């Protein structure tokens, strides 16, 4: 049957490219590396690797939160607010009450708890009240940030509870070149989180359910998936992930600034979209997202290496997003269904 052969053929070609254009991203990263390396040979150093790693380790966890929501067909702009809320609160808690002061692990547990609670807020608005996801998360972002700045604190905190303090200086790799570049040990849990999310998405019913909702919510309901419950789970997971990422960030920069992170949502969303996730839902992968995060981190790093002022970074990410999304949109339009006559001629020839 021709239908079988042509489907199988298309399948094999798409395998090469990667179902979420991972192949394209790898090529893009390679090209970028070569070009930048030509202009600035210092690119080809361990320092670059460590810098990109440092930058990516928290962003990739944020990206996991965003990825899960986007695959389900939603969009979340509150994740940075959740992140900084959780991170800052843990520091404040540790400093003022001594809770989780000595153990960084406990600090992360508390952060996760906070993330779950804030994620519940999103879940209520979206799964409970059925609000459009962009607007709902815009609202919760305002609430979360407002509550933090109004009630938890506005000061920049330079001193940390000892547990997190020591974590912030625990490094996996250190490059003793001219500029001491290091990579925090938190890269390990960061990678583990990505692996865990990837396994969840691919090998659990919950994960497939998330894809199903993004593809066709009505069919998902008819198939027996508890759609509302799944949606709650999605935003709980996103909240927990964002909270962990937020605490990672705060730990790394060693200065708790409650005004940070919010405003940087686009970089993460851009990374996820560049990584092949469809804004309409139903498509996306952890590997693509990780590549997207790495690509953006690489570009920012390269701009610094090339001496481009920081303001251009913002413009660059914006331009990159537009280019990446245009490419996706154009290739989507290019796919056309074949006419019946052609199909039948093929069948006749089979």
């Amino acid at each position: 049957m021709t239908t079988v052969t042509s489907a199988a053929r298309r399948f094999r070609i798409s395998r090469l490219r990667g179902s979420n254009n991972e192949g394209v991203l790898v090529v893009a990263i390679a090209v970028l590396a070569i070009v930048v390396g030509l202009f600035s040979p210092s690119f080809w150093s361990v320092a670059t690797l460590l810098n990109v790693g440092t930058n990516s380790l928290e962003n990739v966890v944020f990206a996991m939160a965003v990825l899960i929501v986007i695959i389900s067909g939603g969009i979340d702009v509150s994740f940075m607010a959740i992140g900084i809320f959780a991170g800052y609160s843990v520091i404040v808690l540790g400093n003022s009450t001594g809770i989780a002061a000595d153990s960084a692990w406990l600090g992360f547990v508390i952060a996760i708890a906070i993330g779950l609670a804030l994620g519940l807020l999103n879940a209520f608005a979206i799964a409970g009240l059925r609000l459009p996801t962009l607007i709902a998360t815009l609202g919760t972002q305002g609430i979360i940030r407002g509550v933090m700045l109004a009630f938890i604190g506005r000061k920049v905190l330079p001193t940390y509870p000892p547990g997190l303090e020591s974590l912030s200086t625990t490094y996996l790799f250190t490059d003793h070149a001219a500029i001491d570049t290091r990579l925090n040990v938190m890269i390990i849990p960061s990678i583990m989180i990505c692996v865990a999310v990837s396994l969840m998405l691919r090998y659990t019913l919950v994960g497939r359910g998330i894809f199903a909702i993004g593809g066709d919510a009505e069919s998902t309901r008819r198939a027996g998936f508890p759609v509302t419950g799944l949606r709650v789970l999605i935003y709980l997971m996103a909240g927990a992930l964002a909270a962990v990422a937020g605490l990672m960030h705060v730990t790394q920069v060693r200065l708790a600034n409650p005004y940070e992170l919010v405003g940087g949502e686009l970089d993460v969303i851009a990374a996820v979209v560049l990584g092949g996730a469809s804004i309409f839902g139903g498509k996306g992968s952890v590997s693509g997202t990780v590549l997207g995060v790495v690509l953006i981190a690489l570009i920012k790093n390269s701009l610094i290496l090339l001496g481009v002022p920081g303001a251009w970074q913002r413009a660059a990410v914006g331009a990159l997003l537009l280019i990446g999304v245009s490419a996706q949109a154009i290739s989507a339009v290019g796919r056309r269904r074949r006419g019946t006559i052609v199909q039948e001629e093929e069948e006749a020839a089979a």
Partner: protein
Amino acid sequence: MSDASTLIQRLMPERSLLRLAAFAIVVMIVFSVMSKPFLSVINFQSMGFQVAEVGLLSLAVMLSMLTGGIDLSIVSIASVSAIVTSQLFAATGASQSSAVTPVLTALFIVVGMLAGTAIGLVNGLLITRLHITPILATLGTMQLINGLMVAWTNGQAIYGMPDIFLAIGTGTVFLVPVAIIVLMAAALLTAVFINRTATGLRLKLVGANPTAARYSGLDNDRVLTLTYLGSALLASLAGIIIASRAASASADYGTSYVLVAIVVCMLAGVNPNGGYATVTGVIVAAFTLQMVASGLNQIGWNAFHYQIVQGVLLIAVIGLNTLSDQGVLSGRLGRPRLRRPPAPGAATSEPGS
């Protein structure tokens, strides 16, 4: 067909508008009771100065929502018009009062606004030619333009504007702030545009059902481009007002303005999936929100408390609307496919599965 009942039907505002008006009145009463100076001329003037910016930005978002999309780049566009105008002032030293200043001022304002509106054209092209969904397209342009503006100004604010320019944002005419007059004029023109012109009707139809619009002979691409041009035009005007009030132009006005504009539109009953919006609603909602902000300020709450209130309002308002309209508003912003839930009460309907 025209008789008293139809006339009354025409004058009676929509249910959501009535709810909004009731809410506005409640807010006014509550705050006048809690804080004596609320009902003063000075307070209303002060609110008036601020509401113009929000009102114009909200009208911009309203236009983009009318066609089922959203324009997230409005604040960046506002900064473009403000910065271009200010750079022109700075370059020609026009802050020194001279006889030629009114004309030059007007010219510079026009140029600045043209620059901002041009971004709208870019948005329109990205959406119609490259088929990028409005959320992503405007997100991208917002970031790109913002970055370019920060680079251009080196992150510094630009000062030095002639008094006549500053009068726009801070002057009054018979106790009414000039800014309000500008807002009302823009609102009137926008209302005429969407309610009285053929193009305005086309906007509503494309937003309501792009497929049916296409099958009715409408040029969806042209309509969408005009939408984002219009949104950019209003945002550019907002930028002029903001710069005039602050006596400076900077690249970082803050994306909180976008949240406020969306809250206003939702309060106003605008359907984010397209097809329905009223200028009256947006203006009333903008004023209401301003009253809330001002009132909260007077009873001692700070900007962060206000942010919480905004978020809660947003969720509460839409939540109420959604629950009462049985899911007409549910859906995901940015999805070009307008999936409508089965219409309740249609003659041939059966309970959905």
